[in-house]
């Protein structure tokens, strides 16, 4: 008997595809937030992106199938639609990220002012390649497209924070600073974004931030130091 004959007869379209079980992990506050945000739009469906941000926070910084299912149920949309929308956007994570996700801009301007040297230094410091997570789950290193702070290249995004003017020399300090901090995790980023939709927002002491080393400042002008000419071109 062929293997084919042993397979159960499929009912075709009438038989539902396996779907993830919803875990209903949204807290009461999360549900309140979702309802308030949904009231901003004439259609409930428009709360899709904010709902996915809430889910990314509630499920610990990424979106497992159960999280997508919960969003589908709470918005009354098909699971396939939620997955289709979530997979379009790069900031929704389908897999867990490290406690700190270092996203190094290697787009046009950053790439000509030394972004790849920063990436290589980070690879050396963390012992992983771009696209990987350290075995201890502390850091994920990624190369990303333009973060639009080109005047301060090289730029790194970590959670909801931008670091500007990063060089191979000062990047080690950023890594050390992050090891001590719990403020810039993927879940915290999702939380900040959710709160931005709501009056009051998330209270962040911007002053303390702008005075931190290597942090963002409003006036972006600074002296430019061309990348060292001696350094061997990477990976040749």
């Amino acid at each position, binding site marked *: 008997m062929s293997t084919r004959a042993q397979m159960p007869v499929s009912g075709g379209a009438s038989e539902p595809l396996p779907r993830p079980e919803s875990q209903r992990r949204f807290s009461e506050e999360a549900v309140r937030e979702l309802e308030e945000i949904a009231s901003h739009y004439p259609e409930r469906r428009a709360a899709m992106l904010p709902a996915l941000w809430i889910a990314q926070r509630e499920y610990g910084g990424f979106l497992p199938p159960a999280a997508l299912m919960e969003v589908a149920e709470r918005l009354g949309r098909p699971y396939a639609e939620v997955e289709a929308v979530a997979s379009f956007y790069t900031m929704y994570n389908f897999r867990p990220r490290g406690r700190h996700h270092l996203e190094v801009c290697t787009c046009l301007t950053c790439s000509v002012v030394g972004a790849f040297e920063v990436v290589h230094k980070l690879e050396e410091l963390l012992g992983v390649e771009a696209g990987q997570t350290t075995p201890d789950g502390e850091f994920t290193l990624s190369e990303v497209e333009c973060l639009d*702070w080109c005047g301060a290249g090289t730029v790194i995004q970590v959670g909801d924070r931008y670091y500007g003017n990063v060089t191979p020399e000062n990047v080690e300090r950023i890594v050390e600073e992050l090891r001590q901090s719990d403020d810039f995790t993927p879940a915290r980023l999702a939380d900040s974004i959710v709160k931005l939709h709501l009056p009051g927002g998330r209270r962040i002491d911007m002053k303390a931030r702008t005075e931190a080393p290597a942090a963002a400042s409003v006036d*972006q002008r600074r002296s430019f130091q061309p990348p060292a000419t001696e350094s061997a071109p990477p990976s040749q």
Partner: protein
Amino acid sequence: MAELKVLFKHRDEPGITEIDTYERFGGYAGLRKAVTMERQAVIDEVKASGLRGRGGAGFPTWIKWNGIPKDTSRPHYVLCNADEGEPGTFKDRELMLALPHMVIEGIVIAAYATQSRTGYIYIRGEFVEPAIQVRKAIDQACSRGYLGRSILGTPGFDFDLHIHMGAGSYECGEESALMSSLMGERGQPRLKFPHAPLPVIAGVWDCPTLINNVETYACVPHILVNGGAWYAAMGTERSKGTKIFSVSGHVARPGNYEVEMGTPLLELLDLAGGVAGGKLKAVIPGGSSVPILPADKCAGVNLDYESCQAAGTMVGSGGFMAFNDRTDIVLLMRRTSEFYAHESCGKCTPCREGTRWMFKIYDRIVSGGGRPSDIDLLLSICDQIDGRSFCALGDAAAWPVRASIKHFRHEYEHWITHKRSPIANPLPPVPRPTNPMLTLTAR
């Protein structure tokens, strides 16, 4: 010529993000004046100013405002496009960080002129820090009666402004894709005029929708306070007012510079401290989407829509990038094409396939496998994308490649013949050998 600061006049005042300070420097006077005027008079003032959209296309702003139906049988919406994603551009980021009230004031004036009751600022997901300032400013504006019910005591003028955060997509900066994303869909562009009505007739939720860039809205309060004629006195015959250019790349003092439209391109470069690390090789004056301009063609080009067009490039969104003589144009364009291949939304075939093909060909060239026919093959793909894609992302992927071949064909030929860069230690550096199959950034 120096900077001409209209929007940035009070940028460096401490506390300008707070409503008290903003009001002390004349903030919300434009809105106060607007609500005493007829709605059409506000639109006429914007018309008199000659303001053109600052997001990249340079479309006359008043035409959009005037196109919103005068009856309110269906709700009207005002959208602010703060999904700044163009490589080389960071003006909206700074406007939101430093002058959030100015942006909000412009949006509320637009809401008054177009009888809109609801507005959304669509901010790219990465811009949490700028969005925090906008959030705070919205809350303060609400508490002062600049948002909410009967704004400034004007009966019937109710307006709510919401923040909608993106989640990482360049394509959502395209206005119809932004509307898709706002409605909770994949950020793909929608059918446009002449096959579908303009957004001013049927935009979000098929209702009349006004959408402008952050910088465009920030210009509006100044136009209301000082008059359209005052604004139109700045700039050139067809490019009025001032424009913020985000200067980056190989310059001594990168940053945002507000200059009068029509300022010579090389003067902007001088304002930013001139070229750093070598001699000027090329500039991209308006963000990664616009054609590259070699150094010897820069003299005589002014930063206004017409002069840039005559020189074969564009003002675009004002993302001015300068490159010194260590820059390898083929490697630079490889990186540009990688960006567009990554950001193409996949809706239409010319862009989805074409951007990936171009990146593969660049990859072949810089890994030493370039063929003499590759240059013409790239040009042929550009022709297949340009004008044939669903939205402007495809065009934007083709223009820089075509211009780089036009001006720097010898560098392509050098790569193909010698299988290495014509520059000893090029920028950007030669990439790691990549898989022949296109590998996009792992999610």
